[in-house]
């Protein structure tokens, strides 16, 4: 019963809004024209001049309308004055002194206007505005005013002949439809002359450099995550229609600084979820565009070391070693993501350890010589921060390979790590500090470049072989060299690639970081090739790659929509749909 009642009410509400209340665009040509009134600026003009008349129709007393272009104009004395301007039918031209009765007729309705043509002759012609300055590309409408022998003045803009002394600087129209209309072409001066019946008036028009008229602000990423950056571009359009990139010249501002701040150069840093307007201004001209920040507000930060579980007392590092650390943010929407490059890293005692950030989401903590053993490391963003104790120890107990064996396809790569057990029993990834060696270079190689600590231990499959390649590593501390109990055996095969598949660990929501894995399917063999795959996403407003170089396969949702994630492995490309609700 109640459902039917509500259905009925809903129906009523739905239809109650109907009914046309828009603005009409059709003219009323049905109501009868009952009278016409002719008006003009004056009823007396000099011979050889002209006058524009207006015919206003009264439609049954209900409304009035300008019907100047609908009536038929005529003169009872064409020798005195007649209508001879086809493009402006309501303009009457005076020939000789006298009186003419002018008539406007539409259907059965007509009106008359008595025009007197005087014998006054022209004394002077004056052009206004006098000596104007306009910017290149701008326009100006000049008016010629004649002073006659009977001390009357009359607008001669239509009746004069207009000339520009230098049309390359500015042109002035002598076309009946636009007499006196000037257009600035190039910088410089030109003399504008209006001549009527042998008498001229002049003025100097000066054209200056084009002025900025508008600024357009654009960005390729109008929707971004909090704690990220967005670049904006400002392009100015000038009075001569030219455009110029003004990104480095304009003053940038954000209407909601709590949502995003912006610095010179147009790079905005997003601080919290919300929306703001990004503006660029220069010389009194401004433009703006909107920026939407998603992904929640930062509520907490956690410092972790990849591949290692931190001890109860915080971080312990071996003296004179380097390890990679990650800052993971927790946000108000319940999501987490890597914010390593967004936070500020601070070590309280920099003689004990320092922080380096080579690129992207890559941060290294560099432990110095063991001294006063404990300091703190802090990761902070705005008012949110976390601090961890950092202990530097001189003692290494042992090292071990992360994997005893590895299967690789020719041309692919995988990671081996050296995990050290420190004096206090905690562990540390010492891959960046180990000395890596492949005992079977023909089969597999291992990276060992001290200048590229992030890639130390990266194994490459070179040639297929029946016998596995042996990869080993050693760490030297205080003159003592530590070797793992067991080296890593790397078996390299060469099979036909059948397909590449992409899979994700979970649904991608706004602000959440999700891992996608690329798996190469060979005959009788599969391999995780996430690190060897080139990843790309087509719509950055929907989802982005967390860090294409240092976090392969990691995707972060930005805003609701659907994007295509493409994984290219060799010559094989595979696409997956990323849906952000």
């Amino acid at each position, binding site marked *: *019963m109640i459902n*039917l*009642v509500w*259905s*009925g009410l809903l*129906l*009523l509400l739905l*239809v109650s809004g*109907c*009914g*046309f*209340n*828009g603005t*009409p*665009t*059709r*003219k*009323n*040509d*049905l*109501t*009868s024209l009952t009278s016409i009134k002719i008006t003009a600026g004056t009823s007396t003009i000099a011979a050889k001049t002209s006058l524009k008349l207006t015919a206003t129709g009264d*439609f*049954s007393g*209900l*409304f009035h*309308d300008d019907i100047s272009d609908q009536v038929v104009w005529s003169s009872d004395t064409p020798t005195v004055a007649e209508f001879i301007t086809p493009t402006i039918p309501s303009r009457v031209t005076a020939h000789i002194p006298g009186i003419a009765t002018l008539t406007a007729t539409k259907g059965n309705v007509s009106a008359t206007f008595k025009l007197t043509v005087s014998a006054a002759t022209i004394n002077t012609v004056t052009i206004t505005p006098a000596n104007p300055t306009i910017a290149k590309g701008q326009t100006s409408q000049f008016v010629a005013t004649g002073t006659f022998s009977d001390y009357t003045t009359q607008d001669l803009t239509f009746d004069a002949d207009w000339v520009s002394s230098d049309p390359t600087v500015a042109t002035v129209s002598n076309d009946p439809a636009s007499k006196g209309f000037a257009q600035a072409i190039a910088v410089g001066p030109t003399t504008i002359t209006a001549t009527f019946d042998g008498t001229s008036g002049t003025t100097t028009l000066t054209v200056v450099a084009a002025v900025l008229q508008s600024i357009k602000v654009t960005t390729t990423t109008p929707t971004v995550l909090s704690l990220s950056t967005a670049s904006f571009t400002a392009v100015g359009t000038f009075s001569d229609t030219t455009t110029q990139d003004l990104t480095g010249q304009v003053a940038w501002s954000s209407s909601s600084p709590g949502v995003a701040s912006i610095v010179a150069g147009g790079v905005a840093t997003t601080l919290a979820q919300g929306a703001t307007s990004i503006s660029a201004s220069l010389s009194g001209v401004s433009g703006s565009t909107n920026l939407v920040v998603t992904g929640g507000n930062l509520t907490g930060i956690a410092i972790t070391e990849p591949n290692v579980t931190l001890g109860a007392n915080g971080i312990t590092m071996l003296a004179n070693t380097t390890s990679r650390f990650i800052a993971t943010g927790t946000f108000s929407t319940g999501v987490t993501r890597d914010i390593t490059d967004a936070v500020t890293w601070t070590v309280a005692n920099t003689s004990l350890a320092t922080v380096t950030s080579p690129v992207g989401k890559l941060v290294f903590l560099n432990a110095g010589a063991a001294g006063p053993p404990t300091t703190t490391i802090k990761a902070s963003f705005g008012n949110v921060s976390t601090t961890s104790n950092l202990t530097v120890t001189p003692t290494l107990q042992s090292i071990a390979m992360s994997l005893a064996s590895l299967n690789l396809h020719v041309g692919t790569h995988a990671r081996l790590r050296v995990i050290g057990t420190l004096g206090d029993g905690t562990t540390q990834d010492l891959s960046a500090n180990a000395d890596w060696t492949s005992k079977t270079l023909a089969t597999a190689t291992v990276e060992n470049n001290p200048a590229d600590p992030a890639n130390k231990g990266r194994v490459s499959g070179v040639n297929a072989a029946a016998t596995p390649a042996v990869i080993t590593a050693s760490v030297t501390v205080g003159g003592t060299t530590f070797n793992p109990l067991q080296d890593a055996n790397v078996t390299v095969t060469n099979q036909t690639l059948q397909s590449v598949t992409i899979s994700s660990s979970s649904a991608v929501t706004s602000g959440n970081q999700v891992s996608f894995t690329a798996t190469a399917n060979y005959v009788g063999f599969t391999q995780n090739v996430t690190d060897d795959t080139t990843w790309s996403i087509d719509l950055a407003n929907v989802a982005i790659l967390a860090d294409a170089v240092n976090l392969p396969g990691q995707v972060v949702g930005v805003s609701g929509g659907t994007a295509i994630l493409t994984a290219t492995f060799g010559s094989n490309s595979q696409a997956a749909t990323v849906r952000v609700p």
Partner: protein
Amino acid sequence: MKRTCQILIALCLPLLFCGPVRAQHTGPYVGAFVGGDMLMTSKGSDNQGTFSLSYNPSLLGSAVLGWDFEPNNPVGEGRIELEYTHRSNQLDKVKFVQGEVKGSGNVIADSLLVNFFGVFHDRGPWAPYVGVGVGAARIQASDLKVTGQPLSSDSSVVLAFQAGTGIDYALNTYLNLDLGYRFFGCVPPKLAEANGSKFKMEYYSHNVILGLRVGF
């Protein structure tokens, strides 16, 4: 007038003997309705632009022939009917760019619809219903004028539809009083103007009706 009143009173007398009962009629019925019809301000458009036409409310008359479904019908509780309705609204004002002016003439709509109503039967005599109808309508511009000047005298048959809701009151098993609301509309008809060009005109109306349905 006096005789008409007497006849009306005589027709209504049997109602005094009707007690409110649960209406469980199944089968055919006929009905007659009268009501008020408010034709909404409509948008007219031709090759010169758009204008609006507003109308005076009017009365409407309607006749129906239908079938009440049996209780617990697998299709659902309700009825299906064929409805003929006549509406005629006087053109009041027409608005153009220059403003609003007086109009005259009538817009007449004769519609034939097939209605489907879902009815909620309770133990008591009241039974609300809601439904839709679809069919055709002949929309006639009858001597439409603007400030006395001819606008259109033409007609067109178009697809029509309506949505309705209301409440039945069962006087007895065979007699039902029906108070309802109908929203009626149609595809904008194209009508000829006096000057030879064509114009399209919206037609949507709100209607309140009161009638009697008799089952047999």
